[in-house]
């Protein structure tokens, strides 16, 4: 069975919510739709306070090449446009909408029927994906149309659909594969057409045998697809690791993934692409998991983007008594929530409750130079050394030791027997070094 060839760790699986079917979350009374839901330039609001909007209506225009439009997830009246705190309490330009009914844009196909025939051509597909505000739902929320428009220097040869879901606890991608398998495969076929390639892979970790079986059974109907079971190892869902695992090619340092010929899209993204292209439905809904060992609820939801996290928490019976940390995303790379009133985004994948015992950091002790961090680093870096250089502020040496290659997966901190928070230092050093590198005049 295939997997990536360097480093990695094995955190406990904990897919507690894996058998919970996707439920439609009720629409809250008020939604806060952030204009910064994607990597790149935030969208610019194109509605005014007092405007009536419908579900799926555009409310924010993209402001650059790497940017994406934002659509309303509800129907109602725009109450305010201005700064609202995100989950880390950073103010973000946000359109606040008071919900009235649930009236959708007429051109969205709301039927349950699966549309198999792809009518649009290559360019129309990319334009539709762009217009529907589809972004990568695997974590980075990179605008999908940008990935589908590779630079002329690169020749795409295949699409890889990322169904690894290597983060513990998270089950939203799994539920998508279980409940919308055909849509995912049609999405993959659309992506293939958009890039003009004739091969796509779906990489799924072996801990999801039902999903592997389900997709494999449907695969013969979709020419070009190959379902690839992967050995369970974190961070398999990392773009570079997944490409290495599936087609045995490595993304060059500071290069683009497409330099290997592969374009990676998450299963959630493939589903969103299906909905955009076949159903003309913009991305304003997301699938997320509410879970955690101390969580009363173990559920998967289809939520409207902009729903306050606190609304979802209350709907699931409130924050558990013993929860000490609430994470949006997985326990390895997710973000700790400091503002529970923050709204969901397109890329929100979970609300994960953790107890103090599970998540409280232990006091760090001396590095015993065991080299476990070096062995665990999937990028072949030396975290112990980067940590030391980072603390000393030695920027040239940090660059020499490839700090910019770090993917911030957290394997080093996870594995360190001395409980040294290696990634904390490395993350800061990486940002500082990359700032210096960008400031240099281009050759």
């Amino acid at each position: 069975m295939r997997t990536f060839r360097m480093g990695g760790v094995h955190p406990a699986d904990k897919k507690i919510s894996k058998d919970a079917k996707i439920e439609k979350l009720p629409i809250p009374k008020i939604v806060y739709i952030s204009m910064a839901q994607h990597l790149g330039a935030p969208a610019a609001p194109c509605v005014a306070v007092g405007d009536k909007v419908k579900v799926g209506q555009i409310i924010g225009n993209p402001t650059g090449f790497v940017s994406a439009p934002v659509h309303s997830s509800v129907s109602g009246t725009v109450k305010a446009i201005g700064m609202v705190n995100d989950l880390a309490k950073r103010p973000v330009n946000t359109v606040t909408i008071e919900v009235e009914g649930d009236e959708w844009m007429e051109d969205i196909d709301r039927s349950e029927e699966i549309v198999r025939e792809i009518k649009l051509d290559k360019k129309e597909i990319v334009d539709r994906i762009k217009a529907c505000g589809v972004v990568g739902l695997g974590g980075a929320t990179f605008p999908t149309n940008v990935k589908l428009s590779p630079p002329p220097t690169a020749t795409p040869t295949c699409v890889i659909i990322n169904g690894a879901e290597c983060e513990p606890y998270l089950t939203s991608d799994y539920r998508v594969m279980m409940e919308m398998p055909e849509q995912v495969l049609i999405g993959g076929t659309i992506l293939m057409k958009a890039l003009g390639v004739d091969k796509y892979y779906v990489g799924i970790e072996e801990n999801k045998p039902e999903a592997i079986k389900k997709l494999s059974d449907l695969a013969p109907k979709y020419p070009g697809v190959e379902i690839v079971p992967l050995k369970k190892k974190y961070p398999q869902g990392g773009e570079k690791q997944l490409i290495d695992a599936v087609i045995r090619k490595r993304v060059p340092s500071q290069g683009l993934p497409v330099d290997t010929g592969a374009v990676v899209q998450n299963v959630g993204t493939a589903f969103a692409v299906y909905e955009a292209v076949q159903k003309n439905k913009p991305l304003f809904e997301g699938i997320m998991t509410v879970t955690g060992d101390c969580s009363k609820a173990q559920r998967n939801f289809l939520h409207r983007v902009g729903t306050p996290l606190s609304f979802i928490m209350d709907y699931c019976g409130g924050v558990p008594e013993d929860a000490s940390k609430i994470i949006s995303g997985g326990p390895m790379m997710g973000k700790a929530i400091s503002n529970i009133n923050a709204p969901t985004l397109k890329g929100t994948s979970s609300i994960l409750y953790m107890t103090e015992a599970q998540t409280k950091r232990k006091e760090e002790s001396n590095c015993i130079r065991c080299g476990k961090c070096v062995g665990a680093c999937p990028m072949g870096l030396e975290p112990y050394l980067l940590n030391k250089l980072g603390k000393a502020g030695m920027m040239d040496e940090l660059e020499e030791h490839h700090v910019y290659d770090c993917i911030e997966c957290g394997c080093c901190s996870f594995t360190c027997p001395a409980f040294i928070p290696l990634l904390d230092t490395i993350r800061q050093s990486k940002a500082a070094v990359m700032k210096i590198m960008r400031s240099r005049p281009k050759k």
Partner: protein
Amino acid sequence: MNTLIVSPSPHVHGKESTRKIMGDVIIALLPAVLVSIWFFGLSAIHLVCVSVLACVVFEYFIQKVLMKKRSTVGDLSAVVTGVLLALNLPVCSPWWLILIGAFVAIGIAKMSFGGLGQNLFNPALVARVVLLVSFPVLMTGTAFHAPETGYLFGNSDLASAALDATSGATPLGFVKEQLAKGVSMQEIMATPGLSYTQLLFANMGGSAGELSAVALILGFIYLLCRRVIKPWISLSILATVFVFAGILYLGDSSKYVDPVFHVLNGGLLLGAFFMATDYVTSPMTAKGQVIFGIGIGVITVLIRTFGAYPEGVSFAILIMNATVPLLNKFQPKRFAEEAQKK
């Protein structure tokens, strides 16, 4: 409302800890300790207990009283040093010799460099070598006789039979002595008590940890299974010694010790499995580790064959310890670099 923790990712930690790793090393050393107790009874227990206790007390005293800091004896690293020191000393070492050893190991080799993780040289080996050059009589030759009192519940018949055979010297020392007298290797190897079986299971002449190759191999396998260490250092040492000694032996089998004898002699296995693999004083990357191991192998054979001392593993490891900062310049294979070459 609960107070929320908001530290950055990763939000979970694996199950590794320094204390757990040290615990595993102690478990891996148990077979060797038990063999020693089986043969030498009370004197082996006395040796191990005094050594461990002294190391822990020295570390606690230095951290708490002299440095006025929190003590880290809970991480068990001082216990590991204590057991390793004991295994590197003759079974009948007097208590004051053990105390000096423990002081050198913990006080000088470890704490004066900044404690766990900071020392350049393996603490137990520094102590062994200091004792070897300071008290040569107590650390070589007949010192390896266990005193009569040591047989309180040890297996005296086996022990004395083996001791008689090699007149109390370590096998390597005995061989070297005989070679110097002009006796040929073939004749020396005919001496009872020098058989491979004896080396494998119970060779009486040597420090406490060198008695049985099988016990050491068991411990090594345990460390590998628990993923405490990677095998590169140990294997490259053994392979180098075997090949280098093999070349000499093929050149003149009457003057040079045969390679199997070299490898099975307890001192080498103890060094290769437990001393050279010490995290703190060995290189980080596989490449560095292999070079480190080759260096130790070559120096060991050179000292054993041409040097003044019969045994050279300790010196070889300490010499190579000094090269570790340099060997750490060998960077691991980068994920992205390899791609660029294509």
